[in-house]
């Protein structure tokens, strides 16, 4: 079983190592891409092999080696943890990564060869890092891979680094997630200080045995959650994700929709046995998740950029997952993570197909694309229906699971907020679909359907978006009950029909309003937006969070400038002043050193006289 895990990590790592070391190969473009895809294909096969061998004995298994041994403290270990959660996530990551890498081959066909090779080197590094994060057996190891995926995200957002916006967005993403990661690092330190172990099973047993608890546990898990907030774009650290859309669309699909941004949710699901012991933090996670969900969905309402609509939607859906974790339902959260990975990646790839064909991101520059781009349109429709949560698509089942868990664990307010989010989601997806594919205005650019290289990966994801929910709910629940510390969370019993009915009503209501506004034009959405004046302004200004962040950033820079001034003119001033004073004194004393031997002899004579006087005093005394 661990052989499969090693092959799983080794495929992308080998591809990255070869591409990084052999620059001539990297600069060939397509061969480099094929090498990377081959590595990813190996990983995909290995993930299936891992899943099959693991399901023969479905319980957590750890293989690790001593990484850092000290005489006075327990050794820090480094290794692989294979359990249901890791296996499911590894399957999702390797499959989506493979599909996206194939898609990129078509999407980036105009890219210069060296730059295409660079792209695939980073894609391979990302796949390796993400799989390493999934299979990490200790929280420290998770952190290492966590930073690696952050680095890949930075590199791939800024892939077109000559564009100022892309470079800026890459930096924004890096700094914003780093801000959360500081909390993560502090959390690790606190956990180590109290539990003297960093392995996941060690931490869980320490918490269960009472050795890890109280303030230390609370602070440690809060630290982990801060890291997850940055990575999974939770309010108020969500500001980087919409800007991250400056990267190539396949990158947005893989990293900023399906896998890396879900790593925060994955981390919280992984540490759910710790989180459940800190009720105050759980409530905060629930609140932040709900807030993120509803704010993200409302910001998608007025957005014109098709990728940013999807980005805000990702923020919103991640908030929904986080809310489920906070409500004490990590299984529902993870289920939604898996289906979301399928349909959101599908939506991004379909959006990429549109952008590839039309050369614009603005949905109002598109229109009536149903006929010329029928396959893309169908895929977008399937993805949109899954995201909106319409029966029997994947999103319906996972969203229903999240909503039911939140309601039945006694959080009616959170349930209402998430239900409203679901309605908003259905509305903005309808708006995007109707404007792009039906619409009244014809697209300015000449539209043509994309090639098979783009459509085939979307087909696989579309399959997941359609049947993933109905087919995967059982297997995922079984796999997670064989995961480290997650067995107590497996919920039992039926919740009745009320939640699915409400969710369906919300989805259909959203779709209906969207159709009335943008399809049949029964009312003018622009007038509604104008009537809701201040709210619309707040939404278009992204609730002023970006402004606050910019102000904080500028304030921080000003503080740094002030500190720099103090350092340059006060601290350095003291040092420079000392040298200036020393030199001035030396200039005064220089007069004595005039080079005339007879003057020097005077000094010798005087010194001798002084010695004689001292000797006489000594003799007398």
């Amino acid at each position, binding site marked *: 079983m661990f052989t499969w895990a090693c092959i799983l990590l080794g495929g992308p790592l080998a591809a990255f190592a070869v591409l990084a070391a052999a620059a001539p190969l990297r600069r060939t473009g397509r061969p480099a891409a094929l090498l990377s895809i081959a590595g990813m294909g190996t990983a995909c096969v290995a993930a299936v092999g891992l899943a099959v061998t693991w399901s023969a004995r479905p319980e957590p298994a750890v293989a690790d080696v001593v990484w850092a041994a000290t005489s006075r403290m327990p050794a820090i270990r480094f290794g692989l943890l294979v359990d249901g959660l890791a296996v499911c996530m590894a399957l999702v990551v390797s499959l989506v990564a493979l599909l996206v890498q194939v898609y990129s081959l078509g999407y980036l066909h105009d890219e210069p060869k060296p730059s295409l090779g660079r792209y695939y080197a980073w894609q391979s590094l990302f796949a390796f890092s993400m799989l390493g994060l999934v299979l990490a057996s200790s929280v420290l190891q998770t952190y290492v891979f966590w930073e690696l995926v952050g680095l890949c995200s930075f590199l791939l957002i800024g892939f077109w680094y000559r564009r100022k916006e892309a470079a800026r967005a890459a930096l924004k993403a890096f700094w914003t997630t780093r801000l959360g990661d500081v909390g993560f690092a502090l959390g690790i330190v606190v956990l180590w200080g109290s539990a003297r172990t960093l392995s996941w099973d060690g931490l869980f047993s320490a918490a269960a045995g009472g050795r890890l608890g109280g303030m230390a546990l609370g602070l440690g898990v809060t630290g982990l959650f801060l890291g997850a907030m940055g990575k999974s774009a939770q309010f108020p650290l969500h500001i980087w994700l919409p800007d991250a859309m400056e990267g190539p669309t396949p990158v947005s699909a893989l990293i900023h929709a399906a896998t890396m941004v879900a790593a925060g949710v994955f981390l919280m699901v992984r540490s759910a046995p710790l989180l459940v012991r800190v009720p105050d933090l759980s409530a905060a996670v629930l609140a932040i998740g709900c807030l993120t969900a509803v704010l993200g969905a409302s910001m998608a309402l007025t957005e014109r950029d098709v990728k940013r609509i999807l980005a805000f939607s990702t923020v919103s859906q991640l908030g929904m997952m986080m809310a489920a974790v906070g409500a004490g339902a990590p299984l529902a959260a993870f289920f939604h993570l898996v289906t979301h990975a399928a349909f959101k990646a599908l939506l991004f790839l379909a959006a990429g197909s549109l952008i590839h064909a039309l050369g614009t991101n603005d949905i109002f520059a598109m229109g009536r694309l149903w006929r010329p781009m029928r396959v893309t349109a169908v895929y977008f429709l399937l993805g949109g229906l899954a995201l909106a949560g319409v029966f029997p698509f994947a999103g319906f089942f996972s969203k229903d699971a999240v909503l039911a868990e939140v309601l039945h664990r006694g959080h009616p307010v959170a349930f209402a907020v998430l239900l409203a989010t679901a309605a908003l989601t259905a509305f903005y997806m309808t708006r995007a679909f109707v404007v792009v594919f039906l619409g009244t205005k014809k697209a300015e650019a000449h539209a043509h359907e994309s090639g098979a290289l783009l459509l085939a990966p979307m087909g696989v994801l579309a399959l997941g978006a359609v049947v993933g929910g109905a087919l995967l709910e059982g297997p995922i629940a079984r796999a997670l009950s064989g995961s480290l510390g997650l067995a107590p969370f497996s919920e039992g019993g039926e919740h009745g029909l009320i939640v699915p009915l409400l969710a369906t009503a919300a989805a259909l209501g959203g779709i209906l309003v969207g159709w009335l506004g943008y399809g049949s034009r029964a009312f003018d959405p622009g007038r509604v937006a104008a009537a809701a004046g201040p709210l619309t302004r707040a939404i278009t200004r992204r609730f002023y969070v970006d402004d606050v962040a910019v102000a904080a950033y500028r304030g921080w820079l000003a503080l740094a400038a002030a500190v720099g001034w103090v350092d340059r003119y006060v601290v350095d001033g003291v040092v420079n002043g000392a040298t200036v004073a020393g030199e001035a004194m030396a200039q005064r004393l220089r007069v004595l*050193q*005039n*080079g*005339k*031997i*007879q003057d020097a*002899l*005077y000094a010798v*004579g005087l010194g001798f006289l002084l010695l004689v006087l001292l000797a006489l005093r000594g003799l007398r005394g």
Partner: protein
Amino acid sequence: MTPSRLLVLSFLLFSIGFYGVLARRHLVGLLLSLELMFNAGNLAAVAAAWSYGRASGFLLALFGIAVTVAEVALGLALFLLADRVRRTTTPDDLSLLRR
């Protein structure tokens, strides 16, 4: 002539020589004053030898005279060179080591 008087004479010679070394503005004069100081030293050694009845003081004086001869030869050679190269016989002008 008692040893103590010899010592007083030696002290006077030394002082006059030292004054000459400090005050003369000609290199040869400086060298002459230096010779006075050397001889004051020799005289003190002889006085001590006489007083304690040992020969080592006389020997020291003899060696001192020999060294003085060598020193005078070397010093005069240097001053001749200074006169030729730097065109000066004044010690104050030989201040290259100041910087």
